[in-house]
């Protein structure tokens, strides 16, 4: 049985109910965080921080069913802040992508790893716009609100990001 906001407010937040919320939303949040950061450990930290932040806000949520959407926005925002703080890391990745993307005997593994590294070198808004459209199936209108820009800018981010990925990875990128 899924937890509702009413449960939290009337009974307090039990570990069981928080656990239920975590189980309902953590996997999606972790996949999103991993695509945005390209790093498993960072994705775990980020989702943990986002979930803890949201747990402090349960009494303020207007709609229980919106928890997942709140968590998604929080993950994107926290990933963006982290990206600003760790620009050095991204620059390092950009410098070393070429040497890291060595041909792999397993084509599928090589392609996936190449995509991870190539995504990590994109400017955050390009990366987020691509992930939100192609992985999360989020409409550009919503992405514009999440990223704080116009829809046309979202399309521009996607276009430029895909162009970079295509140059890096090949014509299979749309």
């Amino acid at each position, binding site marked *: 049985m899924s937890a509702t*906001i*009413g449960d*939290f*407010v*009337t009974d307090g*937040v*039990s*570990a069981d109910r*928080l*656990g239920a919320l*975590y*189980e309902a939303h*953590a*996997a999606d949040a*972790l996949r999103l*965080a*991993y695509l945005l950061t390209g790093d*498993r450990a960072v*994705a775990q930290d980020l989702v*943990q921080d986002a*979930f*803890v*932040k*949201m*747990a*402090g*806000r*349960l*009494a*303020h*949520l*207007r*709609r229980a069913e*919106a928890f997942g*959407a*709140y968590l998604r*926005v*929080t993950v994107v925002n926290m990933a*963006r*802040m982290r990206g*600003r*703080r760790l620009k050095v890391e991204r620059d390092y990745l950009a410098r070393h992508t070429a040497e890291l993307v060595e041909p792999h005997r397993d084509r*599928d593994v090589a*392609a*996936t790893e190449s*995509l*991870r590294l190539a*995504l990590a070198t994109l400017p955050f808004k390009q990366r987020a716009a691509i992930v939100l459209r*192609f*992985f999360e199936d*989020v*409409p550009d209108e*919503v992405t514009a*609100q*999440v990223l*704080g*820009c116009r829809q046309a800018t979202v399309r521009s981010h996607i276009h430029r990001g895909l162009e970079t990925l295509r140059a890096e990875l090949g014509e*299979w*990128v*749309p």
Partner: protein
Amino acid sequence: MTDGFRDELDRLAAGAPTPDERRDQVVRAARRRSRVGMVVASAIAVTGVLVGVLAVGAVLDRRDARPIGPTPTGVVRVSESASTPPPIEARGELAYFRDGPFGGSAQLMVRNADGSDPRTIGDLAISTSRLSVAPDGSQAVFDHGLGEGSGQLEVIDLSTGVVHTIFDVGQPNGPDWSNDGSTIVFSTDSGALFTIPSGGADSGIPVRGEGDGRFLEGYEASWSPDGDSLVAIDDAGEVFVVEVDGTSPPRRLTSIGRAGWTDWGPDGIVVSTMVNDSWGLYELDPENETPPQLLLDRPGDETAPEVSPDGNFLAFIGIDGDQQDLFVLDLGSDAVDQLTDDAAQELSPAWIPSS
């Protein structure tokens, strides 16, 4: 081609960590955090500021408290469409000064933190730099500069607008009211930190910090939540923490740029600091264990941060060209509401705790 790209993203996402790895750790941390939220929600309900918070439906359906003003460029804002959540509305009230277009006068304003119900508490023909509200929410202290090296600390009753002076030696400025209501810290024009009882005094007690009797230089001091420490800024714009009882020397915090404003909230210290010719908001760890964290990515400058009593929101003054307005940042979702949008200049926001 698009399907192939989606499939590749799916394969990549399949490499993400599984939720099970940290489930218990996350739930424990979330539970600790949620208790804070519940305490705050309960306090709000008990005090009647938002009667019936427990009747969540009524509160959640409130429609008359929409954020006002335009969304600043670059600010994350969430809509109420089916696939994205609505903004989390700021609770509580804010007091702030509103300067007239020609300066030299200031109105003390109060409005709800969601932007609604602005009202004027006092019309004061003064020059001031900082406002701080008593923990019972009944009155606020501010500095009143008289010019030529003199000034005074004054307290205004937020219900009646009646003002009285509590300290009139030298030129005190930047007052901050302690969380237990007993003490006010301020700095002098010479840059030394002093405290006085909140009821007023004829002389200040110097904050020593090193136990050797010297005055401690600093300004823009803010109390720690437990009232044992202060955070302040030195002449070089560096942020330091000092025990009020003078038992240990000041500790410099890792910071960037040149700080101008501080506030110590339940979850850490927030400063406005100048980086690359722009004032921005950063969170600092009082224990210096984590690096400064940028809180907001928007054009223009952000100054005068004030964390809400529950630690969930941050009021600040945003400056864009000639515009100087009051904003509230939701520290959970990073959504920002602009509460004012006018030719007057807003300054010195201060949260009004629920009594």
